[in-house]
């Protein structure tokens, strides 16, 4: 007796079709899973057997059961095949109709008592199902809204018994509630930041142009505060971007069941003690790292010089081409990682530099090593560098600052402008740029960066052309030589 169920394995973000074939034959009773299944996947034997018994279904005791996961060349990792394996075994033992099962994809982990647990990547698995022409997917209720984003109909089932009853036509599970798109958590607001006009302006430019921003300065001047307020002035994701980001967050298991579609530009702020794998991705699975979770959004590296050098080096590739490739025995997993980098740092290791109330106690060697590490790592990737000085008491006591909302409106308008009619440099602006390249320490790459920031400044000013004043402003945010080694 042979029965089949279809599901998908994930290679990176990509769903690969997996056929689960259950074969029951006479012989010495036993249960084997073949087809390059890893340990977690092998353990499905126990969960499936226990789940079937708990659901008061019949375990075919007198049969030799072989489950083949095809294609054999593809490594099967994790517990997401449990539900498909259980259903294939049940179809092979004629407890559920095989032809009904063939109309469904399935994804989910089984608990020992037969409950169905959500697994990461349900969105991508559902996308795979749809590409095969399947319109129905059996999954845990927590995964239902996520799976439906792929354009299939989810059949939410809490328990293996429920899945069986449904397939037998004895039960119609409650439809998925449409996700609530209104309740979004509040983001921190720019109104909280006193003074720091220059840094705020740079933040607005970064938001409008998607530029990488470095905030440097003494402690307690609001650098971290400002960095955390970037998401609040970014526009919502375009529909195609939202799906892209959702796919990544699904694979990482980060989607909120009640609000699976990621509408806001993601914001990730990994701690500087994070491993390189945590930041660029890897591990079993492999899983996307923080850089990919920040795709189409913001990656904040707070205290940049504290990150390990190899971690910073590993970020150069995605900063260059927006992709992270993770080599695995089973092939290469590709994760998109087109993020906007925001970083903060002090001006020297003792943090005394730039602070009128303190004095730098760093030895020249220590300072040189600090700058060297920094400049070799990522310094040349920042489009905007702002030194945030310590404000005087009067500034902190000044009236309330502009809130995020009006800034967000300007940013959105500038983005439309940049997309639809990007302003071009006037002759005078061009001359200024050329003069600046001659006089300032500015590389070819630096020049291109200034040109881009100038275009953003023009778009924010609703100007049809990039004038010299926009180039002049952009030049003010170039990497200062005091940060370079």
């Amino acid at each position: 007796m042979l029965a089949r169920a279809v599901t998908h394995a994930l290679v990176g973000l990509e769903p690969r079709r997996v056929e689960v074939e259950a074969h029951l034959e006479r012989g010495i009773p036993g249960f084997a899973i073949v087809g390059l299944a890893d340990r977690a996947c092998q353990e499905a034997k126990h969960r499936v057997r226990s789940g079937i018994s708990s659901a008061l279904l019949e375990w075919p005791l007198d049969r030799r059961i072989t489950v083949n996961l095809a294609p054999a060349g593809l490594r099967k990792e994790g517990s997401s095949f449990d539900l498909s394996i259980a259903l294939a075994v049940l179809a092979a033992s004629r407890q559920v109709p095989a032809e009904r099962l063939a109309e469904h994809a399935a994804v989910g982990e089984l608990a020992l008592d037969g409950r169905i647990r959500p697994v990461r990547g349900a969105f991508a698995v559902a996308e795979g199902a749809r590409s095969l022409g399947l319109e129905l997917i059996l999954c845990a209720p927590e995964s239902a809204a996520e799976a439906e984003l792929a354009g299939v109909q989810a059949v939410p089932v809490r328990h293996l018994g429920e899945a069986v009853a449904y397939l037998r036509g004895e039960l119609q599970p409650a439809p998925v509630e449409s996700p609530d798109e209104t309740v979004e958590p509040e983001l921190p607001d720019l109104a909280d930041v006193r003074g720091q006009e220059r840094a705020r302006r740079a933040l607005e430019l970064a938001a409008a142009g998607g530029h990488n921003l470095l905030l440097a300065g003494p402690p307690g001047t609001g650098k971290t505060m400002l960095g955390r307020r970037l998401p609040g002035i970014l526009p919502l994701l375009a529909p195609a971007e939202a799906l892209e980001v959702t796919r990544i967050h699904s694979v990482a298991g980060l989607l909120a069941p009640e609000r699976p579609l990621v509408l806001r530009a993601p914001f990730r702020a990994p701690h500087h003690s994070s491993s390189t794998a945590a930041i660029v991705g890897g591990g079993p699975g492999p899983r996307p790292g923080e850089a990919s979770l920040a795709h189409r959004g913001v990656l904040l590296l707070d205290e940049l010089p504290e990150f390990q050098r190899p971690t910073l080096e590993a970020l150069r590739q995605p900063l260059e081409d927006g992709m992270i490739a993770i080599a695995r025995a089973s092939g290469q997993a590709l994760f998109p990682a087109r993020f906007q980098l925001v970083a903060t740092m002090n001006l020297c290791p003792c943090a005394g530099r730039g602070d009128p109330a303190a004095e730098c106690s760093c030895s020249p060697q220590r300072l040189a090593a600090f700058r060297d590490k920094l400049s070799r790592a990522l310094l040349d990737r920042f489009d905007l560098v702002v030194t945030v000085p310590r404000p005087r008491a009067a500034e902190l006591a000044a009236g309330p600052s502009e809130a995020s909302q009006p800034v967000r409106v300007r940013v959105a308008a500038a983005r439309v402008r940049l997309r639809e009619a990007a302003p071009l440099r006037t002759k005078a602006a061009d001359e200024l740029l050329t003069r600046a390249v001659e006089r300032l320490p500015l590389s070819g790459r630096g020049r291109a960066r200034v040109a881009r920031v100038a275009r953003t400044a023009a778009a924010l000013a609703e100007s049809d052309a990039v004038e010299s004043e926009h180039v002049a402003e952009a030049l003010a945010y170039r990497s200062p030589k005091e940060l370079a080694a």
Partner: protein
Amino acid sequence: MSGELALASFAAATESHLIAEPRSVRFARFKASFDAAAEHRRLAARGYRFLARSDGSFPTLLGAIHDPPPGLFVRGTGATELLSKDAVAVVGARACSPYGRQVARRLGRELAAAGLVVVSGMARGVDGEAHRGALEAGGLTIAVLGCGIDRDYPAAHRPLAREIAEAGLIVSEYAPGVEPAPWRFPARNRIVAGLCAATIVVEARERSGALITADLALEEGREVFAVPGEITSALSDGSNALLRLGATPCTGSADVLESYGLSPADEHVLELGDQAAAVLERVRESAASADELGRATGLGAGELAGVLTELELAGAVIVEEGIVRASG
């Protein structure tokens, strides 16, 4: 006459410092097989020249020190006669303070504007600022290196080196290809001091390279100026000690120009917009952050950033660690 180029090439090949022909078999062999004409051609192909000590246009002041180099390798578009013009050395700490930077830049600019050639070592800090100041004034400047003239050391000064080579000269007693080494720098300093009738020490710690330059200048009977520094700053210990020992205080370029019998160039009038002029006026009162300048002048952060670039390009202000200072 070509003996000097052979000597310099031999020193490079043996990684030694030589000012006179050694009496060794090794050198004799080297010299015998040395093809000076071919070496000159090789240098010329890279745009370099070699000015031998015995050459008539070798700078007299440098030739007069007690251990003049066998010759100078020269890079840049300037004529070698530049080496014999009235020159002043501006030297000081690499890790200088913002004050030191500001003073070096200003002295470089004003002395060059008045017609002096500004000589320094192209190091970070004071040296680099002095060269930049001279370039800003459209004046002449000479960088003396402690390595080959093709080395662009430190690497961060590569663009600066290019500018200096375009407007003035980069020279070294070491052949192209010689790598920088700490022991070569004091020797380099004797050339900096040797080319100049006066040396100005801007900021120097005790026992620093700049003090060595000053000592060498004093030994050769040249004038030494020191810029007074804060008595609480270790960065000024050396320069203030020089003052105590009798160096001439340098309280501005006029002090130096006077000893050359020159008068300051007319402060060249910057053509600035109204906004820039207002910002500059405020900066001249005292150093301030961009935000403070914005409040003082009513300019928005974006406009102000543009104005500050304008002032920086005009050489009127220096922005460092978020603080804007007047430099003129």
